[in-house]
């Protein structure tokens, strides 16, 4: 995987202005590879390059950011970038087949053209997280945005403390990013991965049970640590309770939100939580920020 110094320090060149002239005009992109993530084939990861643009130079993003991805003639969806900014050869989007655009995407093969508008939104506070221990809690496809930060941390391993990853899915078939959760990440220095499934199958030798229960069992200490979580609403709800019980303060818990989006730039109005727009003020919020907002989330 190609890595450059510039990309490793995205803060060096990033501009907050975003795409100015054609606010709604996507950059042309091409699918290079499609990777099946789950047994049920409902999640695929798309390796995408931007035509005529260099990632890390023309397209600079930070872990946790999103982009609007167009399937021309069908529509546009907001997707989180599941790749790490340290990778400069391509972007990755891990997509669950849920609606019209994503189901069309699932039918696309390498070589197919897409449009990408972004990067959009804020990011995980990777600068202020430096020196801290990190606890990642993910469920199902919710690991996608976390994966960007996990790989970023692993690629800048010396700047961060201990990394613990708790990840769960409904079944072994539904686990995403298998090569990373079972091989790459456990092998990284000072990194532990705990995988659980709601219900195993005949071949499953690992842990069974829900993520919040596993969290309680592992009881990671909050000292010097920040928890970064993402998953289905019901999991988030109980993980938040679990973290509170373990003594995590609201400032120590970071999550990334999902809302229906259309413009991605704070105009169309639908992704508000209180007076904040998830597309421009989020998707990343810490729990203290969320509690201060009026609105419907989780």
């Amino acid at each position, binding site marked *: 995987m190609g890595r450059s110094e510039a990309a490793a320090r995205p803060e060096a060149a990033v501009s*907050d*202005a*975003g795409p*100015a*002239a*054609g*606010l*709604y*005009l*996507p950059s*042309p992109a091409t699918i290079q590879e499609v990777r099946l993530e789950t047994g049920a084939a409902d999640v695929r990861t798309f390796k995408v390059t931007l035509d005529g643009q260099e990632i890390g130079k023309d397209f600079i993003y930070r872990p946790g950011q999103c982009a609007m991805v167009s399937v*021309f*003639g*069908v*529509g*546009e*969806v907001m997707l989180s970038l599941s790749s790490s900014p340290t990778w400069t050869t391509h972007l990755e989007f891990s997509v*669950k087949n*849920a*609606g*019209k*655009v*994503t189901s069309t995407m699932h039918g696309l093969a390498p070589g197919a*053209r897409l*449009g990408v508008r972004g990067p959009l939104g804020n990011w995980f506070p990777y600068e202020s997280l430096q020196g801290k221990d990190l606890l990642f809690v993910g469920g199902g496809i919710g690991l996608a945005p976390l994966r960007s930060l996990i790989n970023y941390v692993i690629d800048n391993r010396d700047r961060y403390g201990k990394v613990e990853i708790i990840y769960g899915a409904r079944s072994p078939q539904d686990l995403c990013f298998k090569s990373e959760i079972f091989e790459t990440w456990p092998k990284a220095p000072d990194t532990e991965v705990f995988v659980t499934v709601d219900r195993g199958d005949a071949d499953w030798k690992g842990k069974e049970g829900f993520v919040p229960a596993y969290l309680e069992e592992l009881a990671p200490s909050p000292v010097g640590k920040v928890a970064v979580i993402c998953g289905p*609403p019901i999991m988030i709800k109980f993980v938040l309770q679990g973290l509170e019980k373990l003594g995590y303060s609201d400032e120590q818990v970071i999550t990334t939100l*999902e*809302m*229906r989006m*259309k*413009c991605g*730039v*704070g*105009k*169309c*109005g*639908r992704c*508000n939580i*209180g*007076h*904040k727009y998830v597309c*421009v003020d989020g998707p990343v919020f810490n729990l203290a920020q969320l509690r201060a907002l*009026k609105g*419907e*989330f989780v």
Partner: protein
Amino acid sequence: MAEKLVTSEGLFTMVEKLLGRAQVTAPREENGIAVFGPVNSAGQVELDGPLPVIPEKSVVFPQSETLLRMDLGGEVPKVEAVEPEGEQVILGVRPCGLQAFARLDRVFLEGAFVDPQYRRRRDHTLIIALTCPTVKRSCFCRAFGYGPSDGSGADLQLTRLPGGSFHLETLTERGGEFVAEMEKEGIAGLTDAGAEAGSAARAEKARVERLAERSAAAVSTEGVVEGLDGMYDDPYWAQLAERCISCGICTYLCPTCHCFDICEKARGPEAERYRCWDTCLFSNYTLMAGGANPRPTVRERLRNRLYHKLNFFNHRYGEFLCVGCGRCVEHCPTNIDIRKVMAKAAARSRAQGVSVNG
């Protein structure tokens, strides 16, 4: 700036001249209803009617407009952004409409992301305001710190004088250029306003401002934001929602509601991406692929709208997103009245004040 006097016939001629060079939008009557809409003859313009039901915003934020045009026939899709074309004039904008433009400007033009469609339309729209000829009971502009004669934000302002002529004030350079152009064309009935016309206009403005005083007594914004800060989970919203039929009248008639949907239209190898008005009162608005909906019932949706008008926008931009035009008050099929929501919030704020102090 300059003050002119123009007869009804002079204004008629001016509109006729304008029609040749710009898209003119003005109040007109359709089946007994006043609406802002495109006109193609000066005779359609109806300046003496009531506040038009369809608000001014469609001039800078049309009900639907194309964003992208796509040719998908080739190996590489050809995609281009579509820019609005031409010049526009909007005639007869009421002071509440001017206030609404100022709010929309903040949404579409402020910050890092400037909306190109809105920018283009806004820059190419000449705004001719009209001093409100009368003030309805549903009007509550005074609550928001302006009145029915306030022309700020317009290029020109018309005031109907008792004799039937109009007092025409130029408020911006662009307005001045327009008047100069009209003078060069030699519009009969367009003359410099003498002292008499000037004072008649001031008297007319004072008259409608006095009419608006009546609403000032009834509606106030004091404590509204603070009151709402503390009543998000109040049972009040469920009570209000029980009555709400979840239609889009209040949002679509609202001069500041700006939410939109982006849709795709594909016909064979060609496609368009367009945006169109949308409303947070429809259940589909926040419905995500996969079926989750963070605002599943009318309670959450109605609350979101009222908060956006009276609280959220204040926290984001420091002002109300309601301008007190009264369209939603007048046209709600079940008589949900935003002024009552304001009063409720203000009362809550006062109660909170009491409990904090005592």
